[in-house]
């Protein structure tokens, strides 16, 4: 299962990087969303995945076999990361909308006016 998820994460990163390198701002933004989802999956996977194991220790148990329960911490981290990226997504879309309102373009090549020339 780890291999499948690992390959899937790789694919997501590839898609994200491809989208970030496009010229349209909307696609760049979508690319950032894909990258952030791939990153969340990395956290999930690196904490170790167990099939069907809840993150609870049975009452009164002295020792627990770590292979049978899942680690709750990565899930908590992902939850935090998702909430943060939700807020940022909302903001970045609003910013894009405002930018389109002002300039009428979503071509990244038009964003050269503030650059270091």
């Amino acid at each position, binding site marked *: 299962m780890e291999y499948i998820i690992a390959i899937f994460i790789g694919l997501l990163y590839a898609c994200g990087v491809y989208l970030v390198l496009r010229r349209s701002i909307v696609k760049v933004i979508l690319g950032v969303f894909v990258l952030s989802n791939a990153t969340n999956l990395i956290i999930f996977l690196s904490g170790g995945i167990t099939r069907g194991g809840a993150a609870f220790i049975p009452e009164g148990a002295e020792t627990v076999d770590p292979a049978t329960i899942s680690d709750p911490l990565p899930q908590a981290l992902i939850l935090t990361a998702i909430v943060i990226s939700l807020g940022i997504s909302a903001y970045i879309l609003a910013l894009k909308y405002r930018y389109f309102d002002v300039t009428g373009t979503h071509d990244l090549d038009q964003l050269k006016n503030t*650059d270091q020339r």
Partner: protein
Amino acid sequence: MILFALLLIPFTYLMLALLIKKAGIKKRLAILFSTLNLLWAMALVPIVQYREIIVVQMGGWSAPFGISLVADRFSVLMLLVTAFIFFLITVYATQSVDKARRKNGHFFFTFGILMGVNGSFMAGDLFNLYVWFEVMLMSSFILVSLGGERKQLEGSIKYLILNLISSLFFVAGIGLLYGKLGSLNLADLSQKMELARANLAVLNPALILIFVGFSIKGALFPFFFWLPASYHTPPPAVSALFAGLLTKVGIYSLIRFYTLFLYYDAGFWQQVVLWMGALSMVIGVIAASSQYDFRKILSFHIISQVGYVVIALGFFTEAALTAAIFFLVHNMLSKTNAFLVAGWVHREKGTLNLKVLGDMFKKSPVWGILFFISAFSLAGLPPLSGFFGKYLVLQSGIEAGYTGVAMLALFVGLFTLFSMVKIWLEVFWKKQPEDSAMEWPVNQKPAHWMLFSSLALGTAIVAMGLWAAPIAEYCQAAAQDLLNPSKYIEYVLGPS
């Protein structure tokens, strides 16, 4: 509670500002709360001198399981300088930022930044550090674009996307590090790395990801492009806040990270850090000398100055870390003040293009002298703070045997002087070209609070030069703590 208050003060302001509608009351509250924050940060200095490392376990959970707030001498110094700069910029913004922006939450989001910056300086936990970064970034995203001018929106898109990507690098690194070592507490991680010393190679992907995340935040050489593209777009009070605080948080984290983790594999990381620092120094200063905009020149100099701190980190001796901390403090003060003067010029003339400006010294010698102090402190002229900063960096570099890099730093100092003299001549000294005299309404409103902020910072820069010895002594004590991670571990996790 002693550390928690530094988060509670900005948070209380945020909550109050949501309830209050009147811009005047928001402004007064902002000054009140930034004063409180400054007083509290000042009170921490004697406490940290006595207790050496202040540790607070949030919610009473013991160290590796809960979230720890940790402040050693280095953190407290950063907190104090941050509080000082933040207070002065808040006072400055009451007259510099227009009313529409103030009404729409200028102070609200600056306090968001303060909360994030304070949190990052005290975080004793890697994921907690990430969350504070996000608090800080989220507020800064909004501050860059607040006002919605075309160039602001453009700058903020670049700023936002590159910083989001840096956060993703950072989180991915945290995830991998957690997967390998099973902890997020900085002290605990450092301890576990020492135990796993034989197989450190397995941690390298995680460490590199986190390192890249910090480098983007700190605007180091191959990752700095977002900074000069966005820092000159928002109102000057906002640029000053960013220039003084944001990249410095990235550098602070890098120093913390290096002294707790990366030094295990010093042979590799020292080279990386030295190269990146040296290239940032050189490229920042060369790019700056080709610019003709007041704030763009200063923005490129941020990159160059950050390089000095990073090469000092690369030398990695006690003297070098002392120099890095001293230089960081000097740079926060001088850079902020240079931006504050730029804000005044912008208010008087409505532009920051060097070619059309002129005669500003005649207009106000006091502001001229204030620019002179901060610019020549950045360039490293005695007896200002920059001279001692550069002197310490060079001395430690030569002592550590890196004469080449030290000479390069000297050479970069020459270029810095060139840019600063250029601004001085073009903006303050030369006669304003007559054909370029634009129709800019003479600003009748007083600017005495702006002057007050800049004067206070100017005084601090001179004082830091005159009393360099006691400050350097404090920095040295901080550097000793940084070089001794087992002390940090012992204070956070308790005696083993």
